[in-house]
């Protein structure tokens, strides 16, 4: 696959949308909501990874709308390895009543709409979803991406002149003194990231 900047790809993709249902995804977003999204996958290599579960919550202002959320478990993929089971604590049995990837993608598009997507290393999650979106839909997620570690870095960097900022997930959560909810479930991580984002956007600068 050709490596193209996202903006150009998006321009190309927009023309490729065949189903009018999805045309609005490419409209500029005017609202004040953000969607925090996280995927649990079998590997960190986009090329070979499968998606196990997808979690997402909407954020409106200072409110994490856990009442409006997405909590999808997929059918167990062929490559569910012992290694990923250890990390996510998801076994094939847990996914027995999961949905197909097609159904999952439709739910994601429906839920996210044209809202910005927030995540920790969000590009990874977007690329994972794109990998499965493109063959069926002909386009990747056009949404604006918000990277939690960038938001954090932009706010905290002046305190670390000349030094590297530790951008590990647990470090950020710790520095922000935010609770971690259901770590290593897709929905739990999406909620934790959403809380950190709200905290960064609306709270005092962390020490």
């Amino acid at each position, binding site marked *: 696959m050709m490596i193209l900047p996202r903006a150009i790809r998006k321009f190309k993709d927009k023309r490729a949308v065949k189903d009018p249902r999805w045309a609005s995804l490419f409209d500029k977003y005017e609202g004040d909501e953000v969607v925090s999204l996280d995927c649990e996958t079998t590997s960190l290599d986009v090329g070979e990874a499968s998606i196990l579960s997808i979690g997402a919550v909407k954020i409106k202002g*200072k*409110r*994490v*709308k*856990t*009442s409006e*959320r997405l*909590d999808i478990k997929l059918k167990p993929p062929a490559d569910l390895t012992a290694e990923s089971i250890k990390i996510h604590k998801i076994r094939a049995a847990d996914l027995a009543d999961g949905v197909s990837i097609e159904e999952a993608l439709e739910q994601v598009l429906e839920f996210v709409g044209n809202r910005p997507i927030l995540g920790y290393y969000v590009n990874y999650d977007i690329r994972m979803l794109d990998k499965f979106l493109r063959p069926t839909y002909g386009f990747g997620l056009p949404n604006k991406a918000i990277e939690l570690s960038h938001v954090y870095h932009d706010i905290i960097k002046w305190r670390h002149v000349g030094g590297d900022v530790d951008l590990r997930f647990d470090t950020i959560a710790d520095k922000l*003194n935010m*609770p971690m*909810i*259901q770590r290593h479930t897709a*929905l*739990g991580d999406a*909620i934790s990231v*959403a*809380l950190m984002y*709200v*905290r960064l956007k*609306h*709270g*005092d600068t962390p020490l």
Partner: protein
Amino acid sequence: MPDSFKMGNLPFSLLTESEQKLLRSNLDIGYYQSGEVIIKAGEQSEGVYVVYRGRVAESEPQDEGDEMLHVFMHYENEDYFGGWSAMHGSAIHNFTAEEETICHIFSTDILLELMDSNPGFADYFQQNLAAKSEIVAQQGEGQDMAEFMLATIEEAVVRDPLIVNEGTSIKESTQLMRETKSDSVLVRRGGRIGMVTGTDILNAIVLNDGSVDADVATIATYRLITCKPDDFLFNALVIMTQQQIERVVVMEGDTLVGVVQLTDVLSYFSSHSHVIGLRLERASTIEDLREAAAGLNNLIKALISTGVRIRFTMDLLAAMNKRIIAKLFDLVVPADMQPHVCLIVMGSEGRGEQIMKTDQDNALIFRNGLNWAEKHQTMQRFSETLISFGFPPCPGNIMVSNPEWVNSVDDWTQNLQDWSMSNDPEDQMRLAIAVDAKPVAGNVALFKVARNWFLRTMRNNDLFFSHFAKAAVEFDTPLTFFGNLKERGELDIKKGGIFPIVHGVRTFALEQRILATNTFERLEALVDAGVMQESNAKDISEALGLFVNIRLRQQIRRAEQTEDGIDPTPNIIELQQLNKMDRELLRDALLVVKSFKKSLTSRFNLPS
């Protein structure tokens, strides 16, 4: 669906599984900076907020120029707020984050839906103190049961075994059983031990036409069900239920320790008080009585720790104390003098509301013109003996060893009248103590004559009642003290809660010439007389019960920490010792006191 939300806390633990699911799926999470107003007075609350992290203060909206921020209550650590505001349309107070705060939030719609489907949950949210206490008590029942069940067999109810050897006749065995008040006998046959119960003997003789001279070993059962002394009592009960038997043999290794009976297990709970009562009844010397009285403190602790309702505890204790005092009176006062005098107890003792042994407040009324030379000597001895039983002397010296409190009927009525017309706070206090008097021994008619006369003269004396009621509203009822949670907050619960209720109710009762002295009974009588609404009386009762209960638990804890076993600050409630539930109930109860004081103020035209 955040499982950061704790469903185990009241009132959410009252919800059914499907209701909890509904709630869970409708939770949002809100983030608030320090100083941010979460709900503003006058505005609508979005729903119920449950604090996950941080601290929220509820305060009165400030007018311009107000210097002090009047904080009613702090919410933290799974406390919830906003429900009242949500149901009543708009908030009357400000809810402000005092530090960075995260709350779980669910909407008013969901609250109403849950209240609709679950009456217990609804009661809880209606802020009805009586209902709330009831719910808390019910939820606590399981725990009490657990404590009871955790007792081990050896602590509780092992009976010494009655053992006979092979060759003993059924008749002899039956006689032995009768003598030792056993209803079973163990039979040693070679190396084995068998059991014969009363039923076995009946069956052998009556149904099977056996001879009373037959060897008892022939009708014994040798497959004995056993347990160990350190087994839980609970296990013994389970075994008995499973095997459908009523006795289990207790064995320590190969040694026979005793027998546990089903009836003993079942009555274990109540047997403590029963035993002490029996001992009091049988005491024939002062020494016997002293020993029986010493068991009382442990009884109180046992009752409190097993969660027996405070009012029952008070009733039981009042009855016990009354028996001790009456018994001592019998032992100390010569029989020929007893018809001419009446011993009364006053104050909390008279109301039957003391829990720990409280100060002696007692007096003696004697027949006009009685000639009894050793009167004061005898009363001196009476007071001293009570002190030696662990009833502390009255600091105000209101006891029979003080001749001022030993009076003829005429002098006693004169005293009551003098006190009622005096402006001296000491006299007011004496009167308050005296109108709670209850006769415990001697000739009750002497007491009744004086009391009835007094009640008649007080009739319609508005000036007196207005004067008398004043003390009830004298002390502030401090709701702000919850704000001091982190600064070792303390509250004098007697001044802030107990006294206003007791004295206010006493005033109402006197005015209605109600003869009961117990505050709870007075409240019931006031409802019957149509002077007070039942719901108000219930709330006041609950509030008083709660104060006494919380105070008692703290007293016991403090008393255990001191060397002499006496709590130096018996009326202090230390806030940090209270759990969330207690704090919430305490706050509601203090609100009840506040509104009761308001009704006193308007009823008796007190300066407000």
